[in-house]
């Protein structure tokens, strides 16, 4: 039997390769995205909700509207904490970046033992931050610590790095830089190695100095990587591990509240004072600040892409 001449035409295929690939991509990302939504997004939404209540920490909720936000204006301790966090941020971020970049440049070119040197710079980052805190507590102990002992010949043996309000925050900054410099070095090293060697070689042939090569070739091409490191560093300084763990282990917010970061203060409000509502409001503001700050940075820098094609 011959096929009927008026048989219906076959419809064009619905699934193209491109569509299937896109779908596969979504499927692979879904588990991680779902986890992010459940463990990060959802708590954020709930925190905003809780910030509208006065919570006694034992199951009692009383709606208070924006009272928790109004309370912030008059909270002197909060503003002290903001000052601490900002001071920490404006010292840790730039100094940490410069130190890390210096290390990255130092270990960029091959020399005997370079692998070992890179590893040693990275090693602090492998240790738990809590352990780091305990170790530095011993090193900095008044009179008997290794650091005071080393400084005694120059008359600084009596300095109390963690007990003096004028020095405690600086000590935390120094320890934080020591802890993170290896990690940041690694990222910057990756960025440096992405820069084609031919660019610098050509410049060298043309007589450019080391500084000129850095200033006009390396630094501009390193901007995307630098951006990542700086954003990461800024967010970490405000809410990351070092904003809480080091403070908790080494100083408990002291001496005299000189190291009471905003995150530590939020912790105190929630778990010492049972002010869960106020703590949630503070958290909401901190998250808002980070979103705005990061958004602005992305906007000004075109998402870190700059003008590199």
């Amino acid at each position, binding site marked *: 039997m011959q096929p009927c001449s008026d048989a219906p035409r076959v419809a064009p295929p619905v699934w193209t390769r491109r569509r299937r690939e896109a779908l596969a991509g979504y499927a692979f990302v879904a588990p991680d995205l779902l986890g992010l939504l459940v463990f990060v997004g*959802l708590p954020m939404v709930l925190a905003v909700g809780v910030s509208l209540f006065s919570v006694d920490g034992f199951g009692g909720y009383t709606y208070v509207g924006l009272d928790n936000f109004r309370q912030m204006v008059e909270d002197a301790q909060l503003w002290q904490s903001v000052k601490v966090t900002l001071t920490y941020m404006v010292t840790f971020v730039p100094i940490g970046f410069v130190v890390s970049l210096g290390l990255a440049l130092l270990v960029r070119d091959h020399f005997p033992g370079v692998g070992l040197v890179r590893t040693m710079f990275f090693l602090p980052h492998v240790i738990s931050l809590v352990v780091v805190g305990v170790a530095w507590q011993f090193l900095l102990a008044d009179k008997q610590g290794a650091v005071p002992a080393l400084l005694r010949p120059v008359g600084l043996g009596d300095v109390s790095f*963690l007990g003096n309000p004028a020095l405690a925050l600086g000590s935390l900054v120094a320890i934080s830089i020591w802890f993170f410099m290896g990690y940041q070095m690694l990222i910057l090293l990756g960025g440096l190695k992405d820069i084609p060697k031919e660019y610098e070689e050509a410049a060298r042939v043309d007589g450019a100095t080391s500084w000129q090569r850095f200033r006009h070739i390396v630094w501009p091409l390193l901007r995307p990587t630098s951006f990542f490191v700086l954003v990461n560093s800024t967010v970490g300084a405000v809410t990351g591990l070092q904003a809480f763990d080091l403070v908790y282990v080494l100083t408990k917010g002291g001496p005299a509240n000189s190291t009471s970061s905003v995150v530590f203060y939020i912790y105190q409000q929630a778990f010492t004072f049972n002010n869960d509502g106020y703590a949630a409001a503070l958290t909401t503001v901190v998250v808002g600040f980070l979103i705005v700050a990061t958004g602005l940075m992305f906007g000004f820098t075109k998402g870190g892409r700059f003008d590199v094609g």
Partner: protein
Amino acid sequence: MSAFERVTRRSLLRGGAVMLGSAMAAPLLSSCGGGAKSGNAKELTFWNFYGPNPKADAQSKWFTDLVAGWNANNEVKIKLHYLPVSEYIAGTALQTAFSAGQGPDIFLLSPGDFLRYHNGHVLADLTPYLKPDQIADFDGGVLNTRKVDGKIYGLPMEQEPLAVYYSVDAFEKAKLSEGDIPKTWDQWLDVAAKLTTKDQFGLLFETIPGYYQNFTWYPFMWMAGGSAVPENGGAGFNVPGVHQALKLWQDAINSKVAPRKPQGDGAGNAAANLAGGYVAMQQTGIWSVSQLEAEKKDFKYGVFPLPVPDGGTYTTDIGGWAFVANAKGANPDAAGKFIAWALGATDAAGVERGRQWNTVVKTNLPARKSVQEAAKAAGAFDKPALKVFLEQVVPGGRGEPRYTPEVYKAVSDAIQATQLGGVDPAKAAADAASKIDTFLKGYKGAAML
């Protein structure tokens, strides 16, 4: 059409939305049940920081034996839940559990934290489970800070007074003898100066901000005539006595006879500080007797009562933990019976339990007269250090106060500002008093003592 092709973007998003919705609903559903009783009525959880702990030491064994003894004769069982002491005191586990409506049925509570839980309406009244003679057996005013309107909300397991420990070797090296033991604050600073060397501080006060620091500073406030909150119609925090007490701790730092940072986990650790040669004199509690015996057996030390300011009256702070029951727990009735049996029983076994805890596995002053008598008869207070505590340190002492977190924090800020921040004591006291007065105007909870 292959199976894979049936999965569409829309169906994937729909599935994700369902999962997300379920996840969002879960905490809301659990929080709806926050006000209801949770847990198992036949098995009560007992959160503590003694046992069963990985070291399996004598204190841990006391707790496991206690619970085993109860479980052998009662239908409702007790299950111990151990948390390391630092996590219990400064961590978030206990508070988080209560916030989620999953607090333990029985737990340990210090006077310093009592009001937080009482004002949160989570402490069960234990009075119905105690006989009058059992209540009378509790020594002096040890129950006062656990009582509200005549009802008892916690039974203390111990009394832990503060005193000063000193290193015999350090005294000898400085050519000092027992006759040089200071009795006044001025003498104390003088002796500390003589004991201070290149490698050793003369004296240690707590410098880490927290409940413990406040606890150790209160006796100086009281001796000089001050109080964190007005008592018996008296003045409050901003008085000359408080200025004096703040100045004592400030002078110790400024004259460099005391460190700005203790060793180990704080100034309550005598093994790390005094016995480690970091300091020559250390203010700490009676618990350090057993700590030194366990960790630094050969260390030679003495104990003396806190020195008194000129014109002041001696006192010290007597701390100590209590068993409390969660009024919203699965079975507060059984919890109350357990606590009364564990700590309040006046039969031979009950007294022996108290003696074991206070003077065998630990070095404390028992909270009950019957246990004290049994301990004396067994020679517990023949040890020189404990004898000093019993005869010189404790008489005149007062219980650790119960203040709300707001008052605690105001006092803590004043101590820190003067001790380490160099602020004038009068200014620090005025600032703190202002915060306290403002708070008290709106305070509606139980009385602060």
